[in-house]
């Protein structure tokens, strides 16, 4: 036996002499010499970095040019004429109009995110507000509720008359809540019955409605922000209003982010499901 055991105890990291069942053996970790990159590789990396940098600088420069300089530029109403033509004969739900905006930011900056509230929402949420307080009712209507009513609605439903129940949500204030039990049998099966547990019985009517009306969240992916802003059957003005709202929301989101270099907005493309992309002002 040539292996030496000093003191009977050997740690593996030190000398890698171990004993298992009386036998002695050694292990050694393979040490590699640090990889020396050849000059060619280093040069290639440098050139790649430079190319990326140049591309970034060009992007920044391009984003300062007006959208009009693009050969594919059009105003929105003209662009919509082309998109509607491209979308002819498609089901209404399928033919959506979307927007894509390039965001030019430093590498490592947190991705842009925020939410838009469209003046013309893609899906309309019908909300009814029930309250005894006229002020609350006014507040609800201002926040975007479809209708506001008081005990007359409850009486009409309990008498079994023809009442418009085409709502997605009914919100009530605590003062009217005890009277609602009369019509719980009608509202319950439809899932409309307000309850404190669901959070639909509250005094803060305005906040609840504006929250429930739905804001469209957006997020930066692959340095682009894309969002659906309308359908092909929308009026031109509605689409323009939605695009303006998106523009404002994106700019707001940008102003909230801290970064060394300013975040720029590149070119914006309006497109539809099956249609071509057209550059627009944003």
């Amino acid at each position, binding site marked *: 036996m040539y292996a030496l055991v000093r003191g009977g105890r050997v740690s593996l990291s030190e000398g890698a002499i171990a004993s298992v069942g009386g036998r002695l053996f050694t292990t050694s970790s393979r040490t590699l010499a640090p990889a020396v990159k050849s000059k060619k590789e280093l040069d290639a990396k440098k050139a790649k970095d430079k190319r990326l940098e140049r591309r970034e600088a060009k992007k920044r420069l391009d984003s300062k040019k007006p959208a009009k300089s693009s*050969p*594919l530029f059009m105003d929105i109403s003209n662009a919509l*004429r082309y998109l509607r*033509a491209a979308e002819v*004969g498609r089901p209404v739900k399928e033919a959506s109009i979307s927007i894509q905006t390039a965001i030019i930011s430093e590498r490592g900056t947190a991705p842009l995110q925020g939410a838009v509230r469209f003046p013309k929402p893609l899906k309309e949420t019908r909300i009814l507000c029930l309250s005894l307080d006229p002020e609350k009712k006014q507040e609800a209507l201002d926040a975007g509720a479809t209708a506001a009513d008081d005990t007359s609605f409850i009486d009409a439903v309990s008498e079994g008359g023809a009442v418009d129940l085409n709502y997605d949500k009914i919100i009530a204030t605590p003062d009217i809540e005890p009277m609602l039990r009369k019509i719980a049998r009608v509202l319950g099966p439809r899932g409309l019955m307000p309850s404190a547990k669901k959070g639909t019985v509250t005094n803060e009517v305005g906040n609840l409605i504006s929250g429930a009306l739905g804001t469209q969240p957006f997020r930066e992916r*692959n340095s682009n922000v894309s969002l659906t802003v309308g359908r092909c059957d929308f009026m031109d003005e509605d689409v323009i209003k939605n695009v303006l709202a998106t523009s404002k929301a994106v700019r707001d989101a940008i102003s909230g982010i801290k970064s060394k270099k300013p975040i720029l907005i590149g070119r914006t493309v309006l497109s539809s499901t099956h249609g071509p992309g057209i550059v627009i002002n944003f």
Partner: protein
Amino acid sequence: MPYQKIAENLRPLLIKGLPKSKVYKQLAHLNLIANYEGSAYRFNDVSKLELIFKKMNAYGHMGARKFWMNNLRTINFHNPQLPIEVHRVECATKEEQMNCPSVLKVYLKDGQIKSIDCKSKQHQDIMKELVELTKAEKVPEEEIPVLKDEAEK
């Protein structure tokens, strides 16, 4: 998913003979929407167009599909107020497929309903028949927008 470049021979040939450059190809696409060959007409006497055909090409339904993809776009571009409906029928069995009609229904403003049989016809021929039937008015060349690159001008 990062953008992956597709080899030239693997790309689907949607419309043949368009320029290779991205911008020029897009311009050509837009110009095709505005002015597809022989379909820039205004239909003043028509109140509605309805196209019915099968979902798959077989048994003579290709002409109707091509008519929808090519000509109807241009018709819509020049008649924005004209409602156009397209129904694509799903047929499971072969018998249904053989019996499925391929029709272009034309609702005239005076209440008449006329129909053009599109089975085993080419889309150019359907377009010609439609123009003859409705006596549509041709859009003058100078009113059709043509997009060009600034540098090309």
